């Protein structure tokens, strides 16, 4: 492996797998940053567990993307040798951990989507994506339960935790719209029964959010302006720093086996 960026032939299916793989890797990486620093040991365990599930999902999806692409890329080349403009993840998942409330709200927004998304994707005509979905759906259901319980505890806990949770919701809300966006390439996959239309999941997602948020005595923002760009490599400034850390070994010592 050289340390230069690889080129990826982003056919619709390759790009589809790559986008979901990048979501899982970047969110898993963010969660792994908590390991050893969480508010309680139980959360060191839980956040690491979720990170491991997500990194596992990323590995399967990268491996599949590489197989579909049919060149000599593999999971590690895809993860370690693409730069910020080649990453295809949602802006939501690259947002910094912030405080515990911000991490959990980010997780809640994502997992409330991932849970129903993967459940629906179990019906994909693509056998590999359906298999990844079957595994990821079980994991996401647990991630959602964990995050939801925390949203309620923080929202209905103390004045401070309530304020922090509300601030996190207000801050991260504008990054949620991207989850439901579809472009032409994905539309073709939807028509072929390979992908599902995420727009059809938004109502369910919003109900989950509303139920949990109202139990937590919190409110969802009215603002519907949504940031976009992650799916096309137009990221926040945060991702470059994450990647420089994630990729430092492969960039410093190119082409070696570890």
């Amino acid at each position, binding site marked *: 492996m050289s340390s230069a960026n690889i080129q990826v032939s982003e056919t619709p299916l390759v790009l589809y797998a790559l986008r979901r793989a990048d979501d899982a*890797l970047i969110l898993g*990486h963010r969660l*792994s*940053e908590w*390991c*050893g*620093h*969480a*508010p*309680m*040991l*139980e*959360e*060191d*365990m839980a956040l*690491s*567990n979720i*990170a*491991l599930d997500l*990194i*596992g999902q*990323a*590995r399967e999806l*990268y491996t599949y993307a590489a197989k579909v692409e049919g060149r000599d890329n593999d*999971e*590690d080349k895809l*993860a*370690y040798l693409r730069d910020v403009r080649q990453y295809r993840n949602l802006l939501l998942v690259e947002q910094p951990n912030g*405080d*515990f409330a911000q991490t959990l709200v980010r997780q809640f927004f994502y997992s409330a989507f991932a849970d129903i998304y993967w459940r629906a994707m179990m019906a994909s005509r693509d056998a590999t994506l359906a298999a990844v979905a079957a595994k990821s759906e079980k994991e996401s259901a647990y991630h959602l339960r964990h995050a939801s319980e925390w949203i*309620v*505890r*923080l929202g*209905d*806990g*103390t004045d*401070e*935790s309530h304020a*922090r949770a509300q601030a996190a919701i207000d801050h991260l809300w504008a990054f949620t719209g991207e989850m439901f966006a579809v472009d032409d390439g994905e539309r073709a996959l939807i028509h072929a029964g390979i992908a599902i239309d995420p727009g059809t999941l938004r109502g369910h997602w919003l109900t989950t959010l509303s139920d949990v948020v109202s139990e937590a005595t919190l409110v969802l923002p009215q603002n519907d302006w949504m940031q976009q760009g992650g799916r096309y490599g137009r990221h926040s400034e945060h991702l470059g720093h994450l990647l420089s*850390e*994630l990729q*430092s*070994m*492969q960039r410093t*010592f190119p082409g*070696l*086996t*570890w």
Partner: protein
Amino acid sequence: MYTQALNTAETDDRGLEDAAKDAAKAAQFQARIDAEERIEPNDWMPAAYRKTLTRQISQHAHSEIVGMLPEGNWITRAPTLRRKAALLAKVQDECGHGLYLYAAAETLGSSREELVDAMLAGKAKYSSIFNYPTLTWADIGTIGWLVDGAAIMNQIPLCRCSYGPYARAMIRVCKEESFHQRQGYEIMLTLCRGSDEQKAMAQDALDRWWWPVLMMFGPPDATSQHSDTSTKWKIKRFSNDELRQKFVDATVPQAQYLGLTIPDPGMTQDADGHWRYSEIDWTEFKQVLAGNGPCNRDRMAARRKAHDEGAWVREAATAYAAKRARRQTAQAAE
């Protein structure tokens, strides 16, 4: 990951006082120990036995938790996704060990909060080894191979420790540690079969970790103050020097297989096949225990930061639990 012999002599004096107060119970207790029976939380035990174990188990727990930091330092930079997942799972295991061990210590009557507070206040110790920095990826291999290797050497006999909850925790911990040790050795093997740069990285890590790892077994027997009571109570079954020698004998052939050189030019093999190592620099050990190791301040600062910044989260969880309990009581009353 590791418990270290750090106890003071005070234990022995208190042990004698207790014995004098209640000679019959103490004799019965010792008879059970001698018969290899396990002591359980509700059984009578001398106050000094309780204190010694609380200290040892909580030090062990603190070591697991502080030990997450040097390895955690590489989770975000692991060189492949497979290594990243394995390292994250390993550090998570250490956290799990910390949790079992705090639970085992709690059976002796001290809460996790009290024990953690003592550590954060600098009153309770953790293994000296975690006060050294992880500078390269090879350090992650070396910690698995040597630090976990030394931990296993020390903890296998603890699986037969007289205190039931500790012994049972050790059985599970040892299984996971031996997996970690193989994983670490496999990282080293990959490096040693790799480029010259990777081999040099592996040798450099061994050079830096070798002596601190030997210090993990605690002071030499000749100066060790506390072993007699722990031995009598079957908490400790081998002396520090015996365990250290076993470790060295097991490790030298492993280093040879990797093609690495143990950084001890004076090391020789005696007629019985034991590898005799040179004098350990105990001044360094004492300095690290006194808080002057390269990372003592960083490790404590990281743990205190996590604790302090997490306070509002723990308070929220407590407040929510109380509200919920009140609501449930109110509902039940309706």
